[in-house]
């Protein structure tokens, strides 16, 4: 084919420009570590990456939820542990008080400790979490759950609701328990329901009156049972949350791997490509230089 001088020049320059542009692209990929520099590079991959990124953001949020949930549940667990210990001590004192050898003085002494323990249990039932929210008042987290109305009347100001937190796209876990359920919803031997504070109050009153009370031990057992059951539930939730944490972690690792597969650069391949492209550019430059020097006019 006949070749014009301008054409030779243009072909050489076009070749140089084209090689420079692919080289610059590879360089940009290496600099960012990304295979996909804009959606048009891989529209399907970009869309997949958007979805995976959303899942990762959500997953990260679930992990943060899990941490907050765990700290809430652990706070609740330690409060319930305190309540359990106090109740065990109350039960011990009740047993002692039932001892026929005790006189009124000894029983009054017991009653003093029982009243202290009552204050402790009431205080624990009105505990707040690290953020200043009451643990046991349901949705009304700014409302003190149990109020001492005097003369053994304790009223619950909260509600029966349990707050839930999301720990996976499909899983919500209760992050609180209602004080009504733990401390108030207790069947007593005499029939009906009675809150644990009234039970303890009655014990102290009986002791002060030198009476040994009939059903108080059984009622205390019911209360202990309720506290331990709730504690067990909280423990089970913590375990479940830990398990979910592991699942989320695994999911995160997998999703990151898939995402990386989609949008990250294969460095080995890219560096190899860069070398080939560099060699190509050099060859094009050198051949251009040599061809430029050829002209018949030089010989004239």
């Amino acid at each position, binding site marked *: 084919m*006949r*070749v*014009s*001088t*301008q*054409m030779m020049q*243009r*072909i050489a320059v076009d070749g140089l420009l084209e090689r420079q542009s692919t080289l610059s692209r590879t360089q940009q990929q290496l600099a960012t570590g990304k295979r996909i520099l*804009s*959606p*048009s*590079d*891989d*529209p*399907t991959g*970009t*869309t997949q990456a*958007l*979805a995976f*990124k*959303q899942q990762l*953001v*959500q997953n*990260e*949020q*679930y992990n*943060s*939820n899990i941490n*907050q*949930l765990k700290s809430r549940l652990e706070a609740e667990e330690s409060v319930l542990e305190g309540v359990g210990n106090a109740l065990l001590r109350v039960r011990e004192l009740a047993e002692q008080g039932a001892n026929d050898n005790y006189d009124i003085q000894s029983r009054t002494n017991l009653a003093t400790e029982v009243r202290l323990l009552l204050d402790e249990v009431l205080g624990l039932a009105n505990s707040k979490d690290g*953020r200043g*929210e009451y643990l046991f*008042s*349901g*949705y*009304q*987290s*700014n*409302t003190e759950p149990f109020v001492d109305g005097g003369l053994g009347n304790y009223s619950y100001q909260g*509600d*029966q*609701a*349990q*707050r*839930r*937190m*999301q720990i996976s*796209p499909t899983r*919500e876990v209760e992050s*609180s328990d209602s004080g*009504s359920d733990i401390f*108030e*919803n207790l069947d007593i031997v005499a029939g*009906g*329901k009675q809150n644990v504070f009234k039970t303890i109050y009655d014990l102290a009153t009986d002791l002060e009156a030198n009476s040994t009370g009939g059903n108080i031990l059984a009622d205390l057992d019911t209360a202990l049972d309720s506290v331990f059951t709730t504690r067990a539930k909280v423990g089970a939730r913590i375990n479940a949350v830990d398990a979910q944490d592991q699942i989320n972690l695994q999911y995160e690792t997998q999703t990151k791997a898939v995402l990386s597969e989609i949008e990250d650069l294969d460095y080995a391949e890219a560096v190899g490509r860069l070398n080939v492209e560099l060699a190509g550019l050099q060859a094009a430059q050198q051949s251009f230089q040599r061809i430029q020097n050829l*002209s*018949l*006019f030089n*010989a*004239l």
Partner: protein
Amino acid sequence: MPSMLGIGVSGLLAYQRSLQTVSHNVANANTEGYSRQRVELGTQTPSFQGVGYVGTGVRMQSVERVYDGFLANQVRTYTSSASHADIFETHANFVDEMLADPEVGMSPAINGFFAELQDVANDPSAVPARQSMFTHAETMIDRFSYLNQRMEDIRGQVNQQMDNVVAEVNGLAASIAEFNKNISLAPGNNPANDLLDQRDVMLNKLAEKISITTVEQDNGAINVFFGKGQLLVVNFDSNQLKVERNEFDVRELQVSLERGAGNWDDVSNQISGGHLGSLFDFREQVLNNTQNSLGVLSIGMADSFNAQHKLGQDLNGELGKDFFNVPGLEVLSSSGNDVSAPFSAQVASSMTDSGKLTGDEYVLSYSSATGYSIKNQSNGLIENIGAALNYDPSSGLPAAGFQDYGFSLSLAGGAPQDGDKFLIRPGRRGSQDLSLNITTPAEIAAAAPVRTSANILSNTGNGIISPGVVTDTGNFQASPLPPLSSDIVMQYDGANINVVSGPAPWNGLSFAYNDSAEVTALPGLKFTISGTLAVGDEFTIESNTNGVGDNRNALLLSGLQNQTLMTNGTASYIDYYGGVVADVGIITNQAQLTNGAQTNLLTQAVDARDSLSGVNLDEEAANLIKFQQAYQAASQVIVASNEMFQSLLSALRR
């Protein structure tokens, strides 16, 4: 009888011309569009000398350019398509890169907003979490409007370019007409090679702006057409193009062609190829679609979020308000509509289902003979609505079987006149008009307005009631608070559960008790009761007064991001956005491939032309030597003839 001297002189003259032409070729080796020229030589008429014909020397017949009209045409055609592909790719790249940019794209903003919503759910009474979500909502809104602004900027650039390109087209058309005149009026029989080359350059420049076809006339003039026979250059005259606003929108430009004095016709859809055609295609396929679709996302998200938000209760104990101000649908009247009283028809459009909206545009036309009709501009589907504008397919109006595009239309004033037209662009203003309706973080409705309880202190059964879900707040009172003026008390009678006290419409309602079955008998409420009930057991639904720790509605709001609320219930927000990004990505990707292919085709066409017409300096150097030698030889003929004459003279002198 020819003399040797005469023959020698004819050779001298011929080779002088040839050397001139070689010099011209060398000088123009780098001139754009130059076709190499060569001198056509022929023998002079021989003279009869009795025994036969004797040659009388050389004659210069013409100076020809080495040129092939087919190759030149091919270059022109590929110039248009390569320029189209190049401009299209450049513009599509803007939008492409903008959408997926991790800093400015929509997806991080949407993800961030919903992540903050989770934090509110974790700690609904905490003001800092609410403040953070509030700020992220503003960020998301900013992002919508920022992307929209970027697209409006691009639209401004497109408009600016249309102006410039049309001015260039007019200039080039005028020059081509001028060249036509000069070429056809040039004296002599030989073609004016350099003028022809220059006109070809002009035609190529014109082809870069707009795809053209050419027809050569007998007088050497070239007529230029575009589209389906639209005349741009006729003989020595050219027609002007003009950029005008489109009938519906000042920001949407169109191109008109002058036909006779003062008559302008819209020829926008006749323009294809080249820079100008590319601008139209980019605007229609990428810019408008993306802007409309992004607006639909904004509207759909605001609408569905509001719907759930209004089922909640905020930190002040008030029923949830609209979280966002949902952008309205854009309706534009044609500038050709009759606006004189009493006509001046106004059309209003309301959204009926945000999940059904698409980025399509619709034209509503009125004809006095057949009434209103609506045309979907993207698929061309036309539906006749009838004489009255009572269009709401979601309610089966004007009749069953109409396409439900997610909006209704009605006449808001005036009376339509024959030929009135309206453009409905549901998504166009969505990204720009989105704003927050709530003004303080406390107004985020994280809680539900009611809560449930079993009357555990008096119940003898072990029945429990679920926290419950609010599905409609229509029966709640917004003021005075609380939403329920009295508690809804339900009592079990051994088989049924009866509402024994509470406000209307719930008081007196009754439903059969099925353990753990979802109860929907109470309007606007959903809950389940489970366990073994005893006669007389009571359950209460009460206002969620002081329920600042309730996060039920926040969890439901947060769940929206994983629901398929867009595109007729097939896509989540991010899916939908991904679709918008993918659409642009695919178009851009195709544009890149097309651009590569078109550039190659153009290069091949140019190579083919240059291979024939281009100057090769080595060849010219060889020709230079060849003609120089021939010139010297011809001089020698004159010398020889002189010497012969001298020797004859000296012979006679002797």
